[in-house]
């Protein structure tokens, strides 16, 4: 349906786009208490057969170095100590964030081929290396800016500016939730700090509020306001609820049946269910000791992220549509994310140490439960790092600056061709040269895996039908299984 046709059809038809009341009023819903929340989009997914139903998005904040992780560059070792111009064989004046273009530095981590696929992974990620055959690496990403925040916005929303909905919100909007018992979009910030921009990183933008990411904690009260306030007894609680039901019923008798009345009543029933279900799901004590160990729970550096990953698996099992995990916090001193300007080796060793084992565990765990085939796992950063160091021109320094010209991301899940390294950068790992992939393209591909045509998932906002993929994006079919 054309956009005008759609808008016209709303004139004297069944209520406005914003009436989420309709969601809860869906006849199918009333019939079956256990079913989820239907998608809110006017043209909801799935638009075609989908391979995936849910997403785990791991956001590595700060920009991780591709040449030290997934982009094997033997030439970079050869040119260690030389200039970028020499390494590229052409005149290139990089426009880096801090303006210091030093000499090329080889990777601080040894690369090996892994699994049957022979995927090249450095020993920065020894655990992920053991599941190499499940991974799909893209080595030819590029971004439009080397400035953290606009780059992060583009990574999440497709736009460089504030105010747009993030990937998770679009998925929640386009597919709905599989369950009423949990939010459709859950967020686990890093233990050390929120990412820069805070809630901007999981904002619903102009999409309705229910698509905003809901923060969960892996320790303590899982969701805000979940627990009954201290000091209220069972008797008081049930007296309140029963009285509430009566008050609402009396009003309904007087007013007649109105969506807005009915949906509110229903939302209290759902909230009560959530109060029961969430503590059960977030109780990690229900998992075995072996599972705890596999995910790295305990006293070590992997504890927090391990708990978050294990919780993620449980949330996915219980119908959460989108879980976002942050590897890394904001830009403070001392550094708590992947932004390795000063000493990249030390920085990345620390950051990878926190997430490598839990992520590998999550992949293995989902696989053995038969869930990997219809889950999308995504590991991204807003940009990569330079193969030359951030130092004086004649030096091989220890840090790397931002590099938006070429960087890597990886996916896992049945929708993708696993054990694949797609696209490539030039021999020293500076810029994407073969099959370059823009964020819009990656988003289009991910939505496609979820059964969504990125051009059909739209929302009217201030003059235009907005999409996650702005006005671009091509599905990269070579990535899809």
């Amino acid at each position, binding site marked *: 349906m054309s956009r005008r046709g759609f808008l016209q059809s709303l004139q004297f038809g069944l209520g406005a786009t*914003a009436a989420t009341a309709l969601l809860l009023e869906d006849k199918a819903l009333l019939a079956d208490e256990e079913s989820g929340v239907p998608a809110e989009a006017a043209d909801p997914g799935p638009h075609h057969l989908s391979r995936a139903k849910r997403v785990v998005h791991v956001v590595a904040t700060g920009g991780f170095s591709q040449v030290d992780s997934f982009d094997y560059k033997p030439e970079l070792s050869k040119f260690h100590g030389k200039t970028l111009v020499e390494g590229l064989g052409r005149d290139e004046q990089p*426009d880096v964030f801090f303006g210091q273009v030093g000499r090329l530095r080889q990777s601080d981590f040894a690369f090996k081929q892994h699994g049957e696929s022979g995927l090249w992974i450095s020993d920065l990620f020894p655990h992920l290396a053991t599941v190499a055959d499940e991974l799909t690496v893209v080595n030819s990403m590029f971004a439009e800016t080397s400035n953290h925040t606009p780059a992060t916005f583009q990574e999440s929303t497709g736009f460089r500016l*504030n105010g747009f909905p993030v990937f998770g919100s679009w998925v929640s909007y386009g597919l709905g939730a599989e369950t009423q018992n949990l939010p459709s979009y859950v967020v686990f910030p890093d233990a050390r700090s929120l990412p820069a*921009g*805070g809630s901007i990183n999981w904002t619903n933008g102009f999409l309705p509020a229910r698509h905003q990411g809901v923060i969960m904690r892996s320790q303590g009260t899982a969701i805000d306001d979940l627990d009954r306030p201290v000091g209220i007894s069972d008797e008081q609680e049930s*007296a309140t609820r029963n009285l509430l039901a009566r008050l609402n019923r009396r009003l309904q008798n007087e007013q007649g049946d109105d969506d807005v009345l009915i949906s*509110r009543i229903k939302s209290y029933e759902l*909230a009560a269910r959530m109060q029961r279900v969430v503590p059960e799901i977030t109780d990690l004590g229900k998992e075995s000791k072996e599972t705890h160990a596999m995910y790295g729970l305990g006293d070590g550096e992997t504890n927090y992220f391990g708990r978050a990953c294990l919780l993620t698996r449980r949330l996915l099992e219980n119908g959460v549509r989108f879980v976002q995990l942050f590897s890394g916090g904001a830009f403070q001193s001392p550094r708590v994310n992947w932004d390795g300007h000063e000493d990249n080796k030390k920085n990345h060793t620390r950051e990878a140490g926190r997430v490598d084992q839990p992520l590998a565990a999550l992949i293995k765990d989902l696989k053995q439960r038969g869930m990997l085939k219809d889950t999308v796992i995504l590991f991204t950063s807003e940009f990569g790092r330079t193969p030359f160091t951030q130092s004086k021109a004649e030096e091989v320094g220890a840090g790397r600056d931002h590099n938006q010209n070429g960087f890597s991301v990886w996916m896992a899940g049945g929708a993708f061709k696993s054990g694949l390294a797609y696209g490539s950068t030039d021999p020293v790992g500076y810029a994407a040269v073969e099959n370059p992939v823009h964020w819009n393209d990656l988003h289009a591909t991910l939505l496609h895996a979820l059964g969504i045509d990125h051009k059909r998932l739209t929302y009217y906002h*201030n*003059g235009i039908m907005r999409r996650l993929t702005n006005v671009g994006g091509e599905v990269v079919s070579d990535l899809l299984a």
Partner: protein
Amino acid sequence: MNKSDLRKIISLLIVSGTFFHAVVDPVVAGDQEFDSSVAAILVKRCTECHNGFDLKGGLDLLSKTAVEKGGDSGPTLEAGDLENSLLWQRIASDEMPPEHPIPQEEKAVLAKWISGGANWGTDPIDVFRYSSENRAGYDWWSLQPITRPDPPEYSRRISKQKWNVANNSIDNFILAKLDEHRLLPSPPAEKEILVRRLYLDVTGLPPSPHDLQNALVDDSTDAYERLVDRLLSSPTYGERWARHWLDVIRFGESQGFERDKLRKNSWRYRDWVIDALNQDMPYDEFTKLQLAGDEIARDDMYARIATGFLGAGEWDEVGFSQRSPVFKRVVRQDQLEDMTSAITQTFLGLTVNCARCHDHKFDPILQKEYYQITAALAGTFHGQDIFVDVSTPAELDDNRKKSAVYEYRQNLAKEIGLSDFEIKQLGESKERYGDFSQYSIKSQDPPETHVLLRGDPETRGELVQPAGIKSLKGVSAEFELPTDATDSRRRLALAEWIANKGNPLFARTMVNRLWHYHFGTGLVDTPNDLGFNGGQRSHPELLEWLADEFIQQEFSIKSMHRLILTSATYKQSSRSREDAKAVDAGNRLVWRRTPRRLESESLRDTLLAISGQLTSEMHGPGYFDFTTFNANSQFYEVFDPVGESFNRRSVYRTIVRSGRSPFMDTFDCPDPSTKSPNRSVTTTPLQALALMNNSFATRASTMLANRLVYEAGDSVEDQVVYLIRLAYSRNPTDEEMEDLVQVIGQVGLVPVCRAVLNSNELVLVR
């Protein structure tokens, strides 16, 4: 062709540069039939790709000469010879347009044209000339001068109803349309319901039992009108309606982006909006001051405070301080887009920002015109505006006194042992008053503005001067500025073009917003877009009439409020009717009042008011509902602060972009980085959890219970009466009384208060 024609054409080409749009006045007067049929088809189906700018296949179909020249595949057509015309071959075989073949009727028109000799009409074709299925042209309704249609007569069906029809033209229009759809209006709402509705709509606060009583016992014929007037004169009106304005103009009190530094001195603009609305400042003056207050009255502090509007959007600190000049230019263009979009969407309901990289795809706005508007802002940058020099001694003194009051309060707070956070907050407020400045704009010498091809600052096109948009009829788009006009002078010219009785969009956009806020949906349901992609008008003549009336009332916003609020349309009951729902479930025809949930701010204010906690403290630095610290970026940890300083109306909350309040957000408080002309209203289980379990809500239950005992006494019946009057603005029914008395007897007052605060009747306005 003679020399004079040739000269005309050459000068035309020079003036229009490489862009395919010619001037509106054609070089050669046209053939009517060609213009309205053939040209319309070519524009609709072909010229998106085949124009002087895009030139797919090397083919431009917009001018006679271009068509004669043909494209990469050869000559376009053989006049008179259909079969051998390349254009026809492509179209007939459906090869062109790709994926969207031309329908038979249109093909027939083109065939007839080619066979008949392919005579050309207006040359070159102006793609904006006519609106089509794909885009709006110069004839688009919102670009035409405003008319004043006569209010239609009531039908006999309607006048037979015992409907309290007022002498109000709004009702004529509404009833006529209802009649068209064979619907009847709803009867007027009961008095108590109407009173509660009026209070909440106009002031955002429920009536106190005392106010309610006064309203109910007043039996005079003009009791309602006098209540309307009283509420419009209340300072609480400005506090409520300012919040609507702040939604639209993306008001945030932090920089956004990565650093999101706090803006401690943005609050004066917010107060200015509250005061301007309370004073019923004429809307044109309201507009001009926000765009160019610093030019209109350089030495008037309040005029300059108004320009806080321009600086209310985000500012990319890191972006502006990065080393690369190339990236910095992009960041500056992003900032110009923020200001341009805020200005044009707010005041004109036009998405001019969509013409940053190309001509607007849907409305007759040229890319050049986007840059003409940014040229008026070329010297406008975010900055601190220091008032010390321009404030009068009386103003300085007043400010000093207010600062001193906070110091006094802070000392008192320490003495009586208030929380550390509250003590700190009072100290903050003292300092923020003392800081006599505002985050708004700083003028610089305006540099040259060029059209940026494809929006890329590195590929500059023609030089442009500040000017408006030609397709708006009734007001000249020429600013006639001297080339050395200052930044503020340019903005004044922009303001005068916008805030003009002759500007077709200015009045229409605002009256539509007013309707939106009173009825929940605008006459155009996309208040920021009256262009092609905007919604269809539900009542075209009414919109015209209201816009004209607004101008006749010298842009007095309160006059329009009064007109709307005293209409019978407004007073209708909110009860559901199955017969009407079957025809118009969305209530676009306004056959009743749509029951609506309170917005975030009104809900919070209502909870505070009912529980006796709300302070009436107006103005001043906002309160923080967060702690904040800086670690390169500014971090905000939102929580529920306890203390009188935090029991102010929600409009006085300091709004930071990365520190969203889960409680407020769950009730659809918008992202302050978005322009939100139309808040969504969602219903979610998280809202239920918030109202049941959030500490703010439970505190309200407890305080409400205390209030009942304290003010109504120990009799449970009296407590129940008082509770229902406070919460629902009516008396309890016998059934309710029995029920509540019993529950109170079992579990006490607090659980009952908790239920009432969660109930539909409190949260919804009917």
